């Protein structure tokens, strides 16, 4: 190289590209083209409509409750009544009774015995 800019330019343009390491292309393709698609949450149309409807109804109820004090107090009163009923000793007694019956019933084998199949008709 004689130091001339034209020669330098020619040498630069003629410079061969570096040889990439073996397997580079394959690893790029594996990470891009052949990569399994990322799992995404795909909702069906009816699910989107349902969620939208629930959100709309929820928002509407929230606005109605916020605007109507009487309704809010009624709702709170109703909720309190439900909580009080659930917390009453009688409710717990009935729940305990139900659980005992369920447990007792589960101890009995209520599955009918399999009837052996006869090989011939009588």
């Amino acid at each position, binding site marked *: 190289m004689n*130091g001339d800019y034209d020669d*330098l330019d020619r040498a630069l*343009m003629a410079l*061969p590209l*570096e040889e*990439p*390491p073996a397997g*580079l292309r394959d*690893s790029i393709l594996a990470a*891009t083209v052949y990569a399994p698609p990322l799992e995404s949450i795909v909702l069906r149309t009816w699910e989107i409509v349902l969620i939208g409807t629930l959100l709309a109804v929820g928002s509407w109820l929230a606005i109605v409750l916020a605007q109507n004090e009487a309704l809010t107090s009624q709702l709170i009163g109703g909720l309190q009544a439900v909580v009080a009923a659930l917390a009453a000793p009688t409710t717990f007694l009935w729940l305990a009774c139900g659980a005992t019956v369920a447990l007792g019933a589960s101890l009995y084998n209520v599955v009918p015995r399999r009837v052996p199949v006869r090989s011939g008709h009588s």
Partner: protein
Amino acid sequence: MSTLGTIEVTDADLVAQTLAGRPEAFGTLVERYDRAVFHLCLRTMRDREEARDATQEAFFKAFRGLGTFKAGAKFSTWIFSIAYHACCDRLAKLKRFSDSELPDRADQTPGPADLAERSDEAKALRQAIDELPEKYRAVITLYHLQQRQYEEIASVLNLPLGTVKTHLFRAKELLRKKLST
């Protein structure tokens, strides 16, 4: 741009095909540019392993962000830009963990094969480029890869056109001096 049989398939077509749900079209883009991108990464990083990782990262980012590729833009400029910035990020990270100045990090001790190839012009030029400061190295590498298109180089490096021309002039000046000694 290249030819497949008699039909010319442009980079833009391949991008459009990939976006239309045919990811294998991106494979053709990888085949076209992986070597050039690796070349840019290697000249920037001066470390084959780092260059390999940066190349892979660049194509991965390009594939994921293909939707943001502007119609009418050149794919080569775009992928070079992604690759160059991936290299810059890697260099910044490496510098953070290294006390020494990173451009001197690469092993510059010539091995027997290197010594044997010293006479080779390409080898000498490559070595001279590697010894350039980072900003000149990128400009001169892109000058080669982008076939002298200054606007494209400016776009890749996100630098004003005038700065690119100045850097290129200084890079050539340094190269000329290195090669004449």
